[in-house]
C-alpha cells in the first residue's frame, strides 16, 4: 500500500457521517450548564465540610461558600433556557415530567435543592439579618423583615432550634448537592447511543469534577475578593482548602483516566470510535489542554503546596494559580465530554466539527455574559448577606461589603 493510497483509504474510512449529525445540537450552552451546577455543588460541599463535618479551619468561608453557591445556582437555568427551541414551554418539565427520562427530574431536583440552599442560608444568617434589620431603613428594612420571616427572636431557645434546623438542612443538602450533579452526569452517562458518554462512571466523574471546580472557585474568588477589599486572607483556611482540592482532584483525575483506560483495555468497537475521536479532533483540547497542561501541572502544584511548608505569599499566589488552572480543566472536561461526544457521528465512520461563533445565539459572547451573571448576583447578594464573619459572637456587628 503506497502512502497516498493509505491516506486516501484512511480518509474515506473516517469521513462518512450521518447527514443529521453534521450539526452539533448541544452547543456551548450545554457545556456551561454542567459547569455551573458543578460549581454550585462543589461550593456547597465546602460549606458542609464546616457545617456538617466541623472542619474548623474552613469557618471563614463557610458562609461565603453558601452565598457563592446560591449566586451560581440562580444562573444554572440560564444556558438551558437560551438553548431550548421553545423556552416558553420550559415549565412542561415540571408539568409533565416523564418518569422514564433522565432529564425530567431536573426541574424538581433543581427546585428542591434551591429551596434547601436558600433555607440554610436564611437560618445561618438569621442572627446577622435580625441585627442588620435594626440598623436598616426603608427598602432594606422591608427586605430584611421578609428574610428573617418577621421574627426577631434570638433567644437561646430560638437559636438552639435554628442550630437543629441548620444541621438537618446541611445534612440533607449534601446528598441533594451530590444528586443534583451526579444526576447531570447521568444525563450524559445514560445515553447508550454515544460511546463517549455511555459509562456508569460518568456521574462519578461529574460529581468529583464538580467538587473540584467548586473548591477551586471558592479559593480563587476568596483570595481575589479579600485582596481587592484590602482584607487579610486566612492562611489556615486557604491551606486546608488546597489540601481538600488536591484530594478531590486526585480522585477526579484518577477516575477520568481509569474510565479511559478501561475503554482502551476492553477495546470493544466503542474504543475504536473513541480512539479516532481522542487522537483526532479532540487531540488538542483533550490530551494537550485538559490532560497535559491543566491536569498534570496543577496536580503537581497542589501536591507541592500541600506537602511542603511554604511561605504564606507563595501559597496564596500559587494556590490561586492552581485553582484557576483547575477551573479551566473542569471547563475543558465539560467541553470535551459535551461537544466531543457529539463530534463523532453515530455512523462511527467520521467526525463533524464545531466552532462556536462569537455573536450567535448560543455563541461565545452569550456564554461570557452567562458566566459573568453569577458574579453580578454574588455582588448584589453581598450587599444583603455579609460574606465574612470573624466570629460567631461578633456576627451582626460587621458592616456590609
Amino acid at each position, binding site marked *: 500500500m503506497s502512502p497516498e493510497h493509505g491516506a486516501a483509504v484512511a480518509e474515506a474510512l473516517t469521513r462518512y457521517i450521518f447527514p443529521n449529525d453534521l450539526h452539533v445540537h448541544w452547543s456551548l450552552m450545554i457545556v456551561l450548564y454542567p459547569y455551573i451546577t458543578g460549581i454550585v455543588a462543589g461550593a456547597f460541599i465546602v460549606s458542609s465540610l464546616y457545617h456538617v463535618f466541623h472542619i474548623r479551619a474552613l469557618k471563614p468561608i463557610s458562609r461565603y461558600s453558601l452565598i457563592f453557591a446560591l449566586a451560581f445556582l440562580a444562573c444554572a437555568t440560564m444556558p438551558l433556557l437560551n438553548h431550548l427551541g421553545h423556552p416558553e414551554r420550559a415549565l412542561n418539565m*415540571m*408539568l*409533565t415530567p*416523564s*418518569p*422514564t427520562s433522565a432529564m425530567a427530574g431536573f426541574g424538581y431536583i433543581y427546585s428542591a435543592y434551591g*429551596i434547601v440552599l436558600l*433555607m440554610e442560608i*436564611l437560618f445561618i444568617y*438569621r442572627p446577622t439579618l435580625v441585627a442588620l434589620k435594626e440598623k436598616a431603613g426603608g427598602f432594606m428594612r422591608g427586605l430584611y423583615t421578609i428574610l*428573617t*420571616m*418577621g*421574627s*426577631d*427572636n*434570638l*433567644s437561646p*431557645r*430560638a437559636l438552639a*432550634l435554628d442550630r437543629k*434546623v441548620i444541621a438537618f438542612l446541611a445534612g440533607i443538602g449534601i446528598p441533594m448537592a451530590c444528586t443534583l450533579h451526579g444526576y447531570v452526569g447521568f444525563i450524559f452517562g445514560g445515553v447508550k447511543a454515544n460511546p463517549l458518554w455511555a459509562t456508569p462512571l460518568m456521574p462519578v466523574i461529574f460529581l468529583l469534577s464538580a467538587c473540584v471546580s467548586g473548591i477551586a472557585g471558592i479559593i480563587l474568588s476568596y483570595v481575589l475578593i479579600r485582596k481587592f477589599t484590602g482584607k487579610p486572607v486566612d492562611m489556615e483556611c486557604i491551606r486546608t482548602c488546597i489540601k481538600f482540592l488536591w484530594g478531590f482532584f486526585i480522585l477526579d483525575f484518577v477516575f477520568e483516566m481509569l474510565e479511559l483506560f478501561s475503554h482502551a483495555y476492553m477495546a470493544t468497537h466503542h474504543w475504536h470510535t473513541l480512539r479516532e475521536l481522542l487522537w483526532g479532533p479532540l487531540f488538542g483540547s483533550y490530551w494537550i489542554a485538559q490532560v497535559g497542561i491543566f491536569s498534570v501541572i496543577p496536580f503537581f502544584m497542589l501536591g507541592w503546596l500541600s506537602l511542603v511548608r511554604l511561605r504564606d505569599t507563595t501559597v496564596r499566589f500559587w494556590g490561586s494559580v492552581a485553582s484557576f488552572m483547575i477551573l479551566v480543566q473542569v471547563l475543558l472536561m465539560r467541553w470535551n465530554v459535551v461537544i466531543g461526544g457529539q463530534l463523532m457521528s453515530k455512523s462511527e465512520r467520521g467526525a463533524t466539527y464545531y466552532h462556536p461563533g462569537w455573536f450567535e445565539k448560543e455563541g461565545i459572547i452569550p456564554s461570557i455574559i452567562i458566566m459573568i451573571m453569577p458574579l453580578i448576583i454574588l455582588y448584589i447578594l453581598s450587599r444583603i448577606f455579609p460574606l465574612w464573619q470573624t466570629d460567631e459572637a461578633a456576627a451582626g456587628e460587621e458592616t456590609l461589603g
Partner: protein
Amino acid sequence: MQPDYTSKYNAHLIRIIVVLVVLAVVGIVVRAMVLPESFGLYGHYRADAIQDEINRPIRNGTNASCLACHPYIRQMHLEGVHRTVSCEFCHGPVADHVRDGQVIALLPKKQGDEIRTLCLRCHNRIIRARPRESIKMISMPRHLEEKHVRTDHICNQCHNVHAPLMWVKQAREIVGIREDKS
C-alpha cells in the same frame, strides 16, 4: 432578655413551613389547571397529539390521483416501462397543483438538461451500486455515440419520458418496413 422579643421562638420556622406548604398547594392547583386536557389518556403524552399528526396535510398524491385527470398521459404511462415511476417525482407534489378540486397552479414542466439529469438519476451506468437486472443502464455520452446521434441530444428527443420505448418501437417498425422494401 426574653421579653424584648416580639415573636415566639419558633415563629419563623412555622411561617417558613406555611409558606412552603402554600407554594406546594399552589403548584399542585396550577398544574391541574394548565395540564393539557387529553394528557395521560393513553400514556404519558397528550392524546390529541395523535389527531394533530393525522391532520397533517397530505401533499403527495398517488399516480392514480394524477392520472385521473390526465387520461392521455394515463394510457401512455401505464403501458410503458415507466409505469412504476411516480408522476410527482418529476413534476412535483399534487398539493401544489390542485386544491379542493380546483387547479391552483401549473407544475413546472422539466426542460432540456433537467430532463437529462432526471433520467440519469436512475440510468447512469457509472454509478455502479445498482442491481443490473432491475433497470436499464447506459453510459453517457457513449450511448448517444452508439446510436449515431449528436452528443448534445436530450433523452426525450428519442424517448418519450412516460413510455421510453414507445417511439423507439414505432421507429423500429417503420425502419423495419423500409428495410424490407429496399
